[in-house]
């Protein structure tokens, strides 16, 4: 029932319902009781009325008899009667009769002859009709009854003797039983009084004419002294019938409507009281319910707000009762949750170092953009952060990032967002930006970074490169947009032109590669990057002296992905900087493991230009050697010729440092680049690896063979050992041994293999 959904209604409905129930019950009981009481009361009243009526009749009779006796004793009356003069006697009878209201007067002789009759003065004497009454009078000195006269009209008559002083005659006095008579009795008994003759005619009644008419239809015979129900012209009565004298009956009726009227009145009052109290109760219980449910509803609404993520404080419920306590607990809970959520969201959406929004936050804001919005994503990467961080330490680096963040924040346009993506990479999200305003913004950014940053009194020069991508022109997907902006940034960095738009850089890598960064990051976390090792054979001693660690991506869906398919991209996007340290550590661990088992192998790792230019590399290598207890000669770092050429000076400086540690260094893919001999000569390297394109074409191109031969010679001349990779045949191997190439590497010797297989392979080779 929906009515009971709300506490307020339920309380009110239950309370009011109970009261209504009680009231209805009370009214029903009162109604029922009053019916019973009316029934009993009306019977009692009727019985009392009937008794009263009999008493009244008796009293009336006595009074009449007394009056008649007094009259009969009147001397003048007796004297006049004694005259026996007809006219005189009649006139005396009339005169004295009128004194007591008798309408009929008779003088009877002692033996019952009617001597005089006021109604029929001229009539001769005749026998008195009611001898029985006379006989009773002879016995009792007087008698009275209600009788029907010759004209069938009822009379109350009394017979008293005329004493002079002995009984000399009888005087009969008659009083007509008329409506006035009935009305008088009705007044004194409280009942409706009707007189009916034995023959059935209504002779007198206190009832109004209409009811008297209805009374003629009543079955008299059915009525007696016991109260019976009687319906008269639609009105209800209790009625009894009593004998009135020997020839008439009197019908006494009590109107139920009149009896009920009192109770109806009581019921009306009760009903009004009930209605009023229900009304009061409705108001009262609603207000009580509201007082109870109001705070609860308040809490419910507050809880709904919390659910929706609104943790603003609810208006407090200050009641001292349980609800107040609940509200207080609720408020504590709210504050706790709000604090925790704030903390969580800060952790989730904020960069802890700078306090700026993080990448996740930025991504969400990007996702929130609608199809009609316009926005620009600007990715900024600091150009000179790495050397600063390396030279001055992490604390300075961190401070620098914080200062840069706050400086960027200063120039951020209204409504924009500044996030730190990672490392020294920041991103702006600016809505409703056009290319022109975006470019101006980029100019301001670069301008802002041109001012040196002061850290502990040290002025540091930082510059940055910016890449911009427009929503939705350059893509709607946030990953795509961010990636394209990053690509544009890399392009700008490469060209050192400050800022580039994604549109100017082009589509960039195929979509497959766009998602590559994410996948690579995941691969790194899930150890999908594995190292394969390819043996390096000392050609003169025909002995395995080392192995080159080659990166493989064991992709869960695409299988083994060759390094050519992702390394260039990783290098281009800089992700390689995240991969390389892990690889280096793995290699160091492997070298240590093998050396422990007596395998004195020099393991080579490939470094990209980015890795090489990373100022932290030297420290990393030093830590690895220390951690794994390796001698520096156990590891060799291979750097491609093109990597060296990205920043030859810095590369040279770093190589010098690495060599200073004692690490072996190798120039990879030698011959493919444009490194000058003079430059090579200045590098502290120990090994030259001839680009395998030369080795592959040894048998076909004498020219390449010549180059190889001269390169070997050149290497030896510079004091370097020369490595040939890509050896695919015995012929090539033999030829290379012949020209003095120190070390060989290639499928013919062995394919790259997982570390576990490598040791097995090595054991097998030793047995041969």
């Amino acid at each position, binding site marked *: 029932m929906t009515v009971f959904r709300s506490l307020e209604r339920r309380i009110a409905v239950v309370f009011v319902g109970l009261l209504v129930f009680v009231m209805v019950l009370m009214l029903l009981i009162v109604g029922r009781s009053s019916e019973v009481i009316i029934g009993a009361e009306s019977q009692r009243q009727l019985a009392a009325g009937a008794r009263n009526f009999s008493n009244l009749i008796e009293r009336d009779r006595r009074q009449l008899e007394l009056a008649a006796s007094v009259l009969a004793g009147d*001397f003048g009356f007796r*004297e006049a*009667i004694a005259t026996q003069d007809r006219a005189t006697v009649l006139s005396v009878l009339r005169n004295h009769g009128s004194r007591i209201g008798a309408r009929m007067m008779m003088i009877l002789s002692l033996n019952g002859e009617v001597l005089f009759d006021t109604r029929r003065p001229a009539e001769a004497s005749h026998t008195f009709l009611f001898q029985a009454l006379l006989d009773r009078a002879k016995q009792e000195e007087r008698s009275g009854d209600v009788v029907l006269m010759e004209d069938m009209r009822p009379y109350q008559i009394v017979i008293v003797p005329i*004493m*002079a002083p*002995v009984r000399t005659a009888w005087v009969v006095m008659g009083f007509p039983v008329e409506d006035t008579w009935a009305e008088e009795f009705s007044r004194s008994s409280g009942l409706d009084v009707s007189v009916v003759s034995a023959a059935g005619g209504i002779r007198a009644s206190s009832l109004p004419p209409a009811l008297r008419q209805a009374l003629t239809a009543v079955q008299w015979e059915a009525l007696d002294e016991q109260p019976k129900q009687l319906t008269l012209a639609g009105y209800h009565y209790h009625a009894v019938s009593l004998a009135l004298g020997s020839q008439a009956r009197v019908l006494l009726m009590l109107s139920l409507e009149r009896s009920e009227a009192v109770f109806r009145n009581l019921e009306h009052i009760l009903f009004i009281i009930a209605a009023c109290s229900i009304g009061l109760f409705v108001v009262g219980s609603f207000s009580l319910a509201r007082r109870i449910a109001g705070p609860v509803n308040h809490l419910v609404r507050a809880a709904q707000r919390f659910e929706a993520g609104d943790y603003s404080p609810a208006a407090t419920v200050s009641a001292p009762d349980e609800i107040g306590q609940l509200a207080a607990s609720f408020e504590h809970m709210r504050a706790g949750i709000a604090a925790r959520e704030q903390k969580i969201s800060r952790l989730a959406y904020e960069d802890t170092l700078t306090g700026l929004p993080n990448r996740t936050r930025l991504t969400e804001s990007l996702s929130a953009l609608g199809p009609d919005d316009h926005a620009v994503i600007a990715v900024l990467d600091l150009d000179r952060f790495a050397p600063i961080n390396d030279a001055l330490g992490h604390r300075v680096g961190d401070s620098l990032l914080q200062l840069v963040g706050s400086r960027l924040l200063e120039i951020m346009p209204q409504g924009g967002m500044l996030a730190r993506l990672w490392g020294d990479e920041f991103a702006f999200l600016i809505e409703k930006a056009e290319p022109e305003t975006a470019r101006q913004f980029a100019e301001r950014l670069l301008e802002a970074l041109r001012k040196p940053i002061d850290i502990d009194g040290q002025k540091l020069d930082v510059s940055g490169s910016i890449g911009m991508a427009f929503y939705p022109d350059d893509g709607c997907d946030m990953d795509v947009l961010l990636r394209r902006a990053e690509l544009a940034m890399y392009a700008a960095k490469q060209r050192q032109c400050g800022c580039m738009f994604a549109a100017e850089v082009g589509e960039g890598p195929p979509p497959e590669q766009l998602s590559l960064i994410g996948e690579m990051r995941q691969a790194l976390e899930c150890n999908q990057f594995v190292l394969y090792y390819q043996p390096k054979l000392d050609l003169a001693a025909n002995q395995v002296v080392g192995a080159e660690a080659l990166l493989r991506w064991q992709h869960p869906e695409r299988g083994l992905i060759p390094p050519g398919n992702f390394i260039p991209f990783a290098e281009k996007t800089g992700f390689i900087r995240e991969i390389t340290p892990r690889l280096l550590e793995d290699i160091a661990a492997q070298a240590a493991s093998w050396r422990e088992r007596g395998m004195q192998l020099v393991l080579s790792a490939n470094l990209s230009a980015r890795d090489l230019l990373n100022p932290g590399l030297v420290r990393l290598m030093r830590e690895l050697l220390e951690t794994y207890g390796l001698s520096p000669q156990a590891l060799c770092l291979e750097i491609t010729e093109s990597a060296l050429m990205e920043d030859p000076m810095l590369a040279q400086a770093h190589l010098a440092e690495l060599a200073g540690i004692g690490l072996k260094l190798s120039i990879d893919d030698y011959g493919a680049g444009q490194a000058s001999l003079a430059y090579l000569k200045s590098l502290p390297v120990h090994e030259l690896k001839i680009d395998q394109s030369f080795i592959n074409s040894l048998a076909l191109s004498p020219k390449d063979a010549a180059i190889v031969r001269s390169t070997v010679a050149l290497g030896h001349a510079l004091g370097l050992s020369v490595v040939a990779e890509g050896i695919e045949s015995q012929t090539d191997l033999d030829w290379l041994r012949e020209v003095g190439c120190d070390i060989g590497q290639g499928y013919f010797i062995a394919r790259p293999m997982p570390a576990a297989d490598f040791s097995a392979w090595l054991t097998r080779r030793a047995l041969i």
Partner: protein
Amino acid sequence: MSKWVLAALPVAMLGWACAANAASINAMVRTPDGIPVEDAAVVLNPASGMPRPALRRATIEQRDREFQPYLTIVTKGTAIDFPNRDPFKHHVYSFSPPNVFEIKLYADKPAKPILFDKSGEVVLGCNIHDWMEAHVLVVETPWFAKSGADGSATIKHLPAGAYRLRLWHPRQRAVVADVKVELKSTDAQHFDMTIDVAPRAVVKKPPPDAGGY
């Protein structure tokens, strides 16, 4: 008044004169149950030649709120005095057709006696005291007697001759038939007579100390 008192004397003398050669009758009046009846009138009417009655006087006193005596038998033409012996007034009346009269409230003795000159039964009442009742039987003959408490009535000094003996009582239930009587000069006849009498009407007399009226 004194003239009436003197007139009574010859009657007494006449009675004494006839006493020597007179007959007498004695009647014993009882109810059918044999109870002696008081105040019954025994009257002898001569069969022929009614003597001229002498004028007589009689007295009915009102004493102690009662008539005294209850029954008075008089010869026609008798004047009756109604002396009041009570300290308050009475109002004596009679509505009996032979002698209707009324002596309105009086004390002591009324100025005139009432003359009863028609024979018949007269009922006396008092308008003030309803229970007061007295009867006067006015007869033609001078020979009559009233029974005493023992029911006995005696008539003396009767001349011989034929008579009709009448028995009457104020409260008799029925008329008793006359009895023919032959009297010799010295007879003394006795009659046992029966009459049915109603008890005296119960009109209660209040005690005198209740007001003394």
